């Protein structure tokens, strides 16, 4: 955690101009990514994916399949990277950990009464500790949006700090659920609170609320990370999640990342895509680059 004396006053207003931030975000989409830049970008995006299954109907069988897919994205294309992590509920962490073995792929677990976060703090802490004890490398917590919108910033801050403590060695991703915060000002404020309270990652969304990740929201968060880095010297990672299912959009995100935070962030330690269907779209594009023709979705395994 950052020294108390450097923690800003979170009740002070922040200024994000909606028109301006949306205009800037759309400018990144004007970059034309071709040839080797496209190939490198797609490979990198693939390697940044947190392959996710977060459903009530998840079973061990489903999670095992997903873990196999994570290690063998498309064996018809040798030399592909793996995804960065598998993201599951706490009850599936043990299964995932075992299935992934020493592949180097991380196990991320959502926690803190995901996705609503409407539970007492001790439950959230136990939820987190449970996942960590079963081997989770990363914890994806949700903030208490209700408290945040009430202006109870200290509550939100303390909760994140408490979960961070419960994480131990695991890296903490803090989900802001930007679709419920609505305005860019609030996204920025929540980002600052999360980073000062000890987040290792800030993450846009649970994927359960629409809109999930958008480019302008992600841009606000990347700029928050940059300003935090200049103030404290501490790097924070970013994870947009939900709604990124096409390669082209993923490349736009990478352009944005590269132009806001620079190349130090251009790897899966500092940036992730939370997505379930993005991987196959990237694979489809990679096969197109390699063979010159598009193959149908039937040629790519879904799990």
């Amino acid at each position: 955690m950052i020294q108390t004396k450097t923690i800003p006053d979170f009740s002070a207003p922040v200024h994000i101009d909606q028109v301006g931030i949306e205009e800037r975000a759309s400018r990144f989409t004007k970059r034309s990514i071709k040839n080797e830049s496209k190939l490198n970008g797609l490979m990198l995006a693939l390697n940044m994916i947190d392959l996710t299954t977060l459903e009530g109907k998840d079973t061990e069988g489903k999670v095992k399949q997903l873990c196999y897919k994570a290690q063998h994205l498309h064996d018809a294309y040798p030399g592909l990277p793996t995804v960065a992590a598998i993201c599951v509920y706490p009850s599936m962490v043990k299964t995932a950990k075992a299935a992934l073995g020493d592949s180097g792929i991380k196990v991320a677990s959502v926690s803190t009464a995901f996705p609503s976060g409407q539970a007492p703090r001790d439950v959230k802490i136990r939820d987190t500790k449970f996942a960590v004890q079963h081997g989770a490398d990363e914890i994806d917590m949700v903030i208490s949006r209700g408290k945040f919108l009430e202006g109870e910033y200290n509550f939100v801050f303390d909760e994140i700090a408490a979960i961070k403590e419960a994480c131990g060695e695991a890296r903490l991703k803090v989900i802001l659920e930007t679709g419920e915060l609505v305005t860019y000002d609030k996204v920025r404020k929540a980002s600052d609170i999360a980073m000062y309270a000890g987040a290792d990652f800030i993450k846009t969304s649970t994927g359960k609320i629409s809109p999930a990740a958008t480019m302008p929201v992600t841009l606000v968060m990347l700029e928050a990370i940059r300003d935090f880095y200049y103030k404290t010297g501490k790097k924070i990672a970013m994870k947009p999640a939900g709604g990124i299912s096409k390669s082209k959009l993923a490349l736009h995100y990478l352009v944005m990342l590269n132009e806001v935070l620079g190349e130090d962030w251009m790897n899966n330690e500092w940036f992730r895509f939370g997505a379930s269907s993005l991987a196959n779209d990237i694979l489809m594009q990679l096969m197109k680059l390699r063979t010159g023709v598009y193959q149908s979705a039937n040629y790519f395994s879904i799990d």
Partner: protein
Amino acid sequence: MATKKNNTIKLKFDSARNLAPAPESKSAAKIDPQYDLFINGKFEKPSGKKYFPTINPATEEKLSMIAEANTADVNKAVVAARTAYDKTWKKMPAAERAKYIYRIARMIQERAREFAIIETLDGGKPIRESRDFDVPTAANHFFYYAGWADKLEYAFPNRRTEPLGVAGQIIPWNFPLLMAAWKIAPALACGNTVVLKPAENTSLTALKLAEIIQEADLPPGVVNIITGAGATGAAIVNHADVNKIAFTGSTEVGKIIQRAIAGTNKKATLELGGKAANIIFDDAPLDQAVEGVINGIFFNQGHVCCAGSRLYVQESVFKEVVRKLKDRLETLIVGDPMDKNTDIGAINSKAQLDIINKYIRIGQQEGAEMYQPSCAVPKKGFFCKPTIFTNVAQSNRIAQEEIFGPVLAIQSFRTDDEVIEKANNTPYGLSAGVWTDKGSKIFNLTTKLRAGVVWANTFNKFDPTSPFGGYKESGYGREGGLQGLSAYVNIIENR
């Protein structure tokens, strides 16, 4: 614990610029080896038989040969315009005029890609800008004024208007097609005929527009487009049968025109230079303000009369803004204008590059601190790195004189009154920008800044419905919007 000093932290952006080339195809546009003068609906050889080359400033390669119109050619064009005015255009029902203007707009849209490519090849601006800004905005101007043609009685309620007659129009090299649209569209809508001269180093898109006007079957002589340099322009200004001069260009030439038409009955609108103040308060959305500053000064390589070339930053956020600006500069891509990823293209001409470099030297000699990003620029062609100066004084020449290039002079200020005074302390008054989250502050400044356009929390936004024009040495008259109509009509008070 040893903590890293903040000033040692630096983000790395090398890879952000090294994208694989993504060039637009030259072959999608047709450029003839030689262009003649467009007079009375036909392309005619210049009577002096002289042609001059037009080059691509990014490669210094010749694109085409352009006809040079002499006094005789100018006379021919004015006679054609007068005849068309008397015989056809003046008498045509306004709704019919509107159809022609609308048709031109549609044809520009249909050939947008070709226009964008030629604009970029001939002028050096990035294809992203000609594609996304110049060409669509030009088409929009024709659409907008097509709508006004038969509604002039609503534009001037309870008053009758009549067209002026023949309008002589002289446009600059920074937005060749767009300026032609700004000039031609309202003139035609109000019932005037036109003799237009594009700048000598960027004639191609105006000549392409002439082709469209021919194809659109506009009655011969309603629009004449003649090419040439200063002497051709002077011949238009001095022609006795021209009723109106519309000029966009330098203040120096504007003054010459003003003198030349003194004592004549010619009406004039002059849109001249600028040295706009862009003002950032400490409660501004800083990242968006920085982006606005970038767009304000580096849009079209800074070849914009309303460019935000003076930046005033409130002292409490000065360091942060300058840091953000420097980071943003590192991600700008300077290079081949035809590449879709290029942010800053070629300087329009060798002469202009020399002027910009002269001012960069002056800035350094004056003791201002220069910063340029570490990007490489192409060896061939005319290029200039985006440049910012800090430690600038109000009395520095780089803060007073129009540079017309990608050079920004940054100063700090403490109070609202101070910055208003400094922003107005210039012979120019074309545009200004204000960045603050506080609405009341915006209104306070917009009423006190002596500039024709004041943008709030944005910069360099243009729309056909919005008037544009200057105070003081930035000229007079308004173009665009309802106000742009009054520059092309005589108002008769009682109907």
